[in-house]
């Protein structure tokens, strides 16, 4: 089964698109695929601890790996220690690594 890397670049408090990405991640996982969610740019605004709860919480309750671009986090003053539980800071290499492993990377 193919792996899917969903890259979410949008602020979840700005539009419903990020919620749809979370929904898709859960559906793909339920269908048996490996799935990872890579938050980048304003997509990382969802993971500061204390941020209002979003659809991301449902993803964090599953086996889907949730990664946040370390550069985007630092740019926005979000320290790794203040990430919501279950989210890991990760380098951009994480995307390249999965592409090289044949995962389908989909950007939103």
């Amino acid at each position, binding site marked *: 089964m*193919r792996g*899917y890397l969903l890259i979410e670049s949008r602020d979840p408090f700005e539009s419903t*698109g990020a919620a*749809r990405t979370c*929904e*898709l991640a859960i*559906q*793909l996982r*339920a*269908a048996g*695929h490996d799935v990872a969610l890579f938050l980048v740019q304003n997509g990382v605004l969802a993971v500061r601890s204390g941020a209002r709860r979003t659809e991301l919480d449902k993803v964090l309750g599953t086996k889907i790996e949730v990664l946040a671009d370390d550069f985007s986090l630092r740019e926005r003053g979000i320290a790794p220690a203040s990430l919501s539980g279950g989210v890991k800071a990760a380098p951009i290499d994480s995307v390249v690594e999965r592409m090289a492993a044949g995962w*389908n990377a*989909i*950007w*939103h």
Partner: protein
Amino acid sequence: MKVLQIVETAYRATTEEQDDTVIWISHAMRGASAELGVLLTGNAVNYVAGEQDGSGLMLGAWRQTQPPAPAQDLAALMRKDVPVYCVREDLAERGLMECKLLEGIVLMSRNQLPRLFGEYDQVWRW
């Protein structure tokens, strides 16, 4: 290789380009023998609405002579054996289920998308 092209944003520079640039590149790739499908989601589902009319732009003495026609372009893609799928919930949210829609499109619910993705080698979201 079969690729599913996801179009999510409608009317993105369509007047200036006289095309939706993703529908256009899909035509061009099909011309290079690409095997494709097109999935319309978000506000791009409006492309299957009837009676879209982007004509009539006038700026000073300049007149647009070739306005964009996304529905017709999608119909042309289907004639080239490119299936066009549309997310049912996105149509419903926008009141489009009660409207006359482009013939030949395949309606999919969001929970059917993983199965649709599985029919393609790659999924590209534009």
